């Protein structure tokens, strides 16, 4: 049985690699992950950027490097050019007595104030070691917006697994090959598992690669895989239903895209609804999956919560699966 399932899986992978639509579906999450990484570095960057002269006192530059990102320039002309670039950079230039802070003028107040305060502390000779303040951190190293974007990408990737299955089923229908498989010893359940493996493994692979690209190395991978695999059940059901109901690839892709609406609705509901209204989204497995992934990506997840969310995804997905099963079986006969 396993050998046959892997044969279906291998055939689907081989066919997908020769189908431009399937390749697009496989590559898209990775491209999106790269895009998130490229367009969100500023979200991570909460440090003030400073421009200083190379001729300045080296101890001044070293002091500032402890608290800000410092770029050093040879002359005042280069400093002015740097300050006038699009991003927020403040320059500190030594005068005969004291310092001059050069700004473009449109920097946030925080940049100006921070620069003035930092330079004052240097002039006063204050060091970090002298402070009586103690630190307490929740350990959130990634900005919430980036986590939200990556979580949305995971939800989308899960649904793309369904789209991949739908495209594969449409291909089988176009080639009229389902009947040919039905007269082999491969059971219908074996056929379904083989096809689901293709969508599932591609999606899980894409999710893992996307998380690595976006820098989420030290999350709890067991939790991510558990939530991902559970969410995939619904994607499989949607994929088979839409594939069997569609006559061509474009129709299948369009139908599966419609399912992205409840996904988006669940995410918006989770992010925007007040706590007292969150229950209105409990029907959606996407809601629970999004919630669980958010906790894992934010490193705030504990096993009981993740298991609760995963359990809800599983129950709701299985309910849809059993409702859809007769239709899937009939379609594959």
């Amino acid at each position, binding site marked *: 049985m396993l050998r046959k399932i892997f044969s279906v899986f291998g*055939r689907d992978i081989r*066919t997908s690699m020769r189908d431009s639509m399937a390749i697009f579906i496989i590559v898209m999450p990775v491209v999106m992950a790269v895009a998130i990484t490229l367009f969100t570095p500023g979200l991570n960057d909460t440090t003030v950027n400073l421009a200083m002269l190379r001729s300045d006192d080296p101890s001044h530059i070293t002091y500032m490097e402890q608290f800000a990102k410092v770029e050093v320039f040879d002359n005042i002309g280069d400093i002015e050019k740097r300050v006038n670039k699009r991003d927020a950079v403040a320059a500190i230039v030594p005068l005969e007595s004291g310092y001059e802070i050069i700004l473009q003028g449109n920097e946030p107040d925080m940049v100006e104030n921070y620069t003035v305060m930092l330079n004052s502390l240097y002039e006063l000779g204050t060091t970090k070691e002298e402070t009586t303040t103690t630190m307490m951190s929740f350990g959130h190293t990634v900005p919430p917006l980036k986590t939200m974007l990556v979580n949305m990408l995971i939800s989308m990737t899960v649904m793309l697994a369904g789209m991949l299955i739908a495209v594969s089923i449409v291909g089988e229908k176009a*080639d009229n*090959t389902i009947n*040919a*498989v*039905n007269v082999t*010893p491969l059971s219908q359940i074996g056929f379904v598992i083989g096809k689901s493996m293709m969508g599932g493994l591609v999606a899980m692979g894409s999710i893992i690669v996307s998380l690595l690209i976006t820098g989420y190395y030290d999350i709890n991978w067991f939790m991510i895989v558990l939530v991902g695999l559970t969410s995939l059940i619904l994607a499989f059901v949607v994929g088979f239903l839409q594939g069997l109901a569609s006559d061509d690839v474009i129709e299948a892709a369009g139908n599966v895209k419609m399912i992205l609406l409840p996904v988006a609705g669940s995410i918006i509901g989770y992010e925007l609804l007040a706590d007292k209204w969150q229950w209105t989204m409990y029907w959606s497995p996407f809601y629970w999956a999004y919630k669980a992934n958010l906790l894992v990506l934010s490193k705030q997840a504990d096993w009981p919560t993740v298991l609760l969310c995963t359990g809800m995804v599983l129950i709701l997905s299985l309910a849809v699966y059993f409702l859809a099963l007769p239709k899937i079986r009939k379609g594959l006969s």
Partner: protein
Amino acid sequence: MISVKNLSHSYSNDEKLAVNNISFEVTKGETFGFLGPSGAGKSTTQGILTGLLKQQRGEVIVAGYNTMKVQNERFNKIGVSFEQSNVYSKLTAKENLEFYAKLFDVPTRDPEELIRLVGLEGKEKVRAGEFSKGMKHRLTFARSMINNPELWFLDEPTTGLDPTIAATIKDIIKEQAAQGTTTFLTTHNMYIADELCDRVAFIIDGVIKLIDTPRNLKLQYGQKLIDIEYINNGKVIKETLKTIDDHDRKRIGEIVNNYDIQTMHSKEATLEEIFIQVTGRGLV
């Protein structure tokens, strides 16, 4: 090898029957032709026998398995060649056969050997999507032999093929039959059936009208005919006369004695003519 008793099937689940209470048996090693026009119930019957259609009424045993029960392992003994070619267009000819070979639990034939057998040598690495209709049909036919089937279902195996390739396919079917393969041949081509089948069944409107060997049918229903072309007053005259009719026999004598004979051929009634005689319907 096949036993069908009182099989009926309705697509609309009512009394409008596509197959109406048919019964027949196919013995091991036999080539059995299931003949009838489009819509007669041939494909419905084959669909039930191959498990592609759910059996509703009657009792069907195929290769020792009751078709009412889902037993996928029975397909290890069965090969099915469809009328509509159905191969993966994005896989090459060889990849197609290799994939199907992996789905069986019994020793399978070498894909390259099968490709050569159906005249597709040199096309092993060509994707089936680039094949002509006839080439796809041959690949579908080759695939049906991948598991060395004991029971072989062939649905219009030579349709759409040029005469040379059709002859090759017929030779393969004869060779398989000689090796003991039981063949269930569904066709509306009476010449193929006449040439290949040990016995034939005529089905029309879901009812089997008769089952017999082509020879017996010809003896029972056929009339030996003579086609004569002769010259009369400078014109070529053509007549077809029955050898069992006294009047026609006298007429043959007259023509032979009095005219210049151009051609004279004896001719047997074809299965098609017998089918029309028995069922009152053509095979279109």
